[in-house]
């Protein structure tokens, strides 16, 4: 049985005044196996973020349903950790307190909270920054903290909404390697939304390509590149071939919109 099943989930934004209701997402069906790393690739405004937010429970689907371990998703919860594109660390909490936020919600003892949070801070490379406030950290470090904060809750699935979208290229590449390393070690089910073709391939065991608005799945491609994946794999012939294919898939969509 799949870990997450998205069953004919669609989203229609209601009409406002004289305008027609807008369809953001055509009913979409997608199953994600346990410990899979799925990237959802699509042009801006294709509804990929909407789909992710429905899985997170932050938005309600207009039709269809989402099942996690066979249980329907009713609203947001700690079993689905989320990392946003915008920096969403709580500015009044230190890095360690941010990472421990979800544990505190669950009533975990202070001692255990500190131990778990420290260990995650170390795993994402933030050792020595535990007592800093978010504004003292760079964008990349803030997103590392956001990933640690989501993972410290030990969610059943990790949802990421273009988490590296606001970072510069070098930082972005480092973050991709770090996240992939964590996934290789920890075995997590991950759903990762991006509009960057290279990122989609590098991270994924499966790339799901979405069409322009209203979004629907137009391709579902397994990525059979070996693990662990060093960054040098981005220049290998298999990678380049896959990239060419996906760039073409996306190009058709973007051209169609203009």
């Amino acid at each position, binding site marked *: 049985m799949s870990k997450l099943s998205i069953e004919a989930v669609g989203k229609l934004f209601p009409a406002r005044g004289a305008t027609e209701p807008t369809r953001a997402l055509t009913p979409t069906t997608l199953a994600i196996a346990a410990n899979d790393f799925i990237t959802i690739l699509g042009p801006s405004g294709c509804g990929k973020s909407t789909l992710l937010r429905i899985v997170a429970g932050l938005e309600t689907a207009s039709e269809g349903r989402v099942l996690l371990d066979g249980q329907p998703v009713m609203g947001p919860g700690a079993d689905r950790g989320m990392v946003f594109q915008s920096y969403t660390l709580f500015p*009044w909490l230190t890095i360690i307190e941010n990472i421990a936020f979800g544990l505190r919600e669950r009533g975990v003892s202070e001692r255990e909270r500190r131990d778990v949070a420290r260990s995650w801070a170390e795993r994402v490379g933030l050792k020595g920054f535990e007592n800093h406030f978010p504004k003292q950290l760079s964008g990349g470090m803030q997103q590392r903290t956001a990933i640690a904060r989501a993972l410290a809750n030990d969610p059943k699935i990790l949802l990421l909404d273009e988490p590296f979208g606001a970072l510069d290229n070098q930082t972005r590449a480092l973050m991709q390697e770090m996240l992939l390393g964590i996934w290789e070690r920890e075995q997590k089910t991950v759903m990762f939304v991006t509009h960057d073709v290279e990122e989609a391939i590098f991270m994924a065991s499966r790339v799901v390509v979405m069409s322009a608005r209203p979004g629907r799945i137009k391709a579902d491609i397994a990525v059979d590149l070996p693990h662990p994946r060093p960054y040098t794999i981005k220049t290998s012939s298999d990678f380049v071939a896959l990239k060419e294919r996906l760039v073409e898939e996306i190009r058709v969509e973007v051209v169609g919109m203009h």
Partner: protein
Amino acid sequence: MKPLQPVTAQARISYGIGFFALFVAAWAIATLGGFVPKLFLASPITMVEEGWQLMTVHGFAFDIAITIWRVVGGFVLAAIIALPLGIMMGAYKPIEAFFEPFVSFARYLPASAFIPLLILWAGIGETQKLLVIFIGSFFQLVLMIAVAVGGVRRDLVDAAYTLGSSDRSVVTRVLLPNAAPEIAEILRMVLGWAWTYVIVAELIGSSSGIGHMITDSQALLNTGQIIFGIIIIGLIGLISDFLFKWANQHLFPWAAR
């Protein structure tokens, strides 16, 4: 000078003191030079002499204390009720929809216009003075606190929900700490406004306080005392402002600009 180029801390202080000195100098020239009749404006020297008289002979320190007590008392009463109400309004939209129109209306009712009515209801004792301050600050506080609490970034709330927060803990662990520095800033501002109300309240039907001294001095044409009273109010305002700023910096280091 270049636009927006910062000045050093030392230069800032000397410029600030510089204008004070210039102001007092202009005042001294106007009065001591005989350009303004003594009847209308006392000179800085007369003002200091009168002030000394007030403090040593007329027990003005007691008036200052009573005025501070009135401002702080009325303001604390207003804040005790305005804080929970403002927070609830900021967090829960139906509560906001229920109270907001009335509070917005009440905010424009001038507190000083209530003084005759309050004298009728509560006499000319302390209750009346506290009520003037209360009316003057309560509605402002409620509205501004509600806006501060409701102005939280939506994605911070989303993040809290995905980390397992309940509705209640979104209020206590996200909305409140997020708004805390702004609420402290609102308290500082409204306390400043409360000072203007207390003097007005003391001008009418009062037998003590800085405002009362000012009306008395007007009857005696003692402009030196009036100016001394006004300067004392300014100084107290400056000190309380400084204390608030200092406390905010230490309470909310993460929010410092």
